[in-house]
């Protein structure tokens, strides 16, 4: 090694051009999207096949009551992007897990299954923070489906009638023996506790500083991991955390439910100035946001003329319009976005284009 040379280059730095980050950011987004689609696509296919098999086995597709369908839809509309609802029937439950709606076409006797992906998939990929968590849950849904298949084939009548009666739903569907054959971290860990059934994981997203009420499915008694014994607890975590409740249902079975609370920033940082001179520093006017969706930014001149619009968090304004470089001046921005609760935020202000 040449010490002279090493010393010389040790402190050598050069700022890369803006395009490096833009490309990198794009590839990170693509990667998240690809992994997400893979994990979502697989359960979708599995769920479809299983639904077909079950429908054929049952003979009559009428067994899927409308009430059950609506239960599944309700789950989708919950403010968490992914949730599993212990009240809905397991078969419909698993598609809901992966945020994909599987509806049987108005109970037609052909047993035809219409599978359409929910639009929310797109919104989730737009919101990268949530993607990994969705994945976690979809792993679980992918693996819990086969176990449901076993039960559904052997006890179709019970499954059908259990639509409204939660004490029976939880019963044999996800028993340890049924799912140990599919080795899986999530399920396997739950099954290490003999005699306790796993009720599912529900993901809740909140903005930092907010509190959230967790309501357990109905039962005789409850025990939360923080010591509470009520059906509902209110938590205000500073960072993402898992909460577990052990409940005893009306059939005296112990059911464990998991809640994963994701704490998001839900904020946006808007710079006060930028300098599009190509030196690699602040060459774009680019707000930085986390945990937001439906982002839109409009930039106006002081005269109110719309100069630039972007709906992508990684696409900022480079200080140019079709008329070329804009002069050193104060400009107006108007940014709108939704936070995780769907609340719309509108902010506007001014910033300076520096020469």
């Amino acid at each position, binding site marked *: *090694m*040449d010490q*002279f*040379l*090493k010393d*010389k*280059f040790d402190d*050598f*730095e*050069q*700022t*890369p*051009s803006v*395009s*490096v*980050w833009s*490309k*990198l*950011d794009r*590839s*990170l987004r693509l*990667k*998240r999207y690809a992994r997400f689609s893979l994990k979502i696509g697989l359960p979708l296919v599995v769920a479809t096949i299983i639904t077909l098999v079950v429908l054929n086995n049952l003979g009559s597709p009428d067994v899927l009551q409308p009430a059950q369908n609506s239960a599944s839809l309700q789950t989708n509309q919950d403010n968490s992007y992914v949730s599993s609802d212990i009240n809905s029937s397991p078969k419909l439950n698993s598609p809901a897990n992966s945020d994909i709606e599987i509806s049987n076409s108005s109970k037609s006797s052909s047993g035809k299954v219409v599978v359409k992906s929910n639009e929310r998939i797109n919104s989730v990929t737009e919101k*990268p*923070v949530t*993607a*990994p968590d969705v994945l976690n849950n979809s792993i679980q849904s992918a693996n819990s489906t086969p176990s449901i298949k076993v039960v559904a084939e052997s006890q179709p009548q019970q499954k059908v009638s259990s639509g409204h009666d939660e004490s029976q739903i939880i019963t044999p569907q996800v028993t340890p023996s049924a799912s140990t054959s599919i080795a899986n971290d999530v399920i396997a860990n739950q099954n290490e506790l003999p005699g306790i059934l796993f009720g599912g994981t529900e993901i809740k997203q909140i903005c930092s500083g907010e509190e959230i009420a967790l309501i357990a499915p109905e039962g005789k008694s409850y025990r939360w991991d923080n010591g509470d014994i009520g059906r509902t607890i209110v938590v205000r975590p500073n960072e993402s955390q898992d909460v577990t409740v052990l409940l005893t249902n009306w059939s005296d079975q112990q059911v464990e439910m998991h809640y994963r609370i994701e704490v998001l*920033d839900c904020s946006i940082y808007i710079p006060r100035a930028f300098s599009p001179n190509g030196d690699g520093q602040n060459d774009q006017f680019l707000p*930085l946001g*986390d945990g937001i969706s439906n982002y839109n930014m409009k930039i106006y001149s002081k005269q109110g003329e719309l100069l630039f619009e972007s709906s992508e968090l990684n696409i900022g304004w480079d200080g140019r319009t079709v008329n070329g470089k804009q002069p050193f001046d104060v400009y107006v921005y108007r940014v709108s976005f939704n936070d995780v609760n769907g609340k719309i935020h509108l902010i506007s202000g001014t910033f300076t284009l520096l020469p």
Partner: protein
Amino acid sequence: MSDEIDIITGCKKQVPRYQRALYDKFASKMLGVCLRYSHDLEEAEDMLQEGFVKVFSHINDYRGDGSFEGWVRRVMINSAINYFVKNKRHYFQDDVDELGEVIEDERVHYDQLHVKDLLKVIQGLPGGYRTVFNLYEIEGYQHKEIAEMLGISVSTSKTQLLHAKRLLQKRLTDYNRETKGY
């Protein structure tokens, strides 16, 4: 330091804000590294980008032993090597016979060149020379390690280094003659 731990934890969870923070923290320094391994800025920025993709996708492999910057730097160097091997495999030609005995401690006299001028001369070296030169003289790897990294023989590594140093010395002399008039 806790700032760095936050960034690493955030990146392991793939939080975009922390990925950006990590990039901002290391991009300039790592471009400095990539520039040495590249022919020009464009190539260096390509290496940098590929390197960061690897940093983000392998961040879970970083266990906290050793400095994080050192780890990022190693990932960058590997990425630079991959980039080079992928694009210009034919650069490593083993012509050890031509040189005969390889003298290892041949020194180059760098004079008081500014780092940017030095970089220009290094970037002007043929790719194979440049890679071995960087790994040996600046990163401090041994010939055996370099040979393994690049998939070449130890003697090729030695030859390439010697060629690199000789060429560098010649170019530096030319460079001095041009700029200082002697």
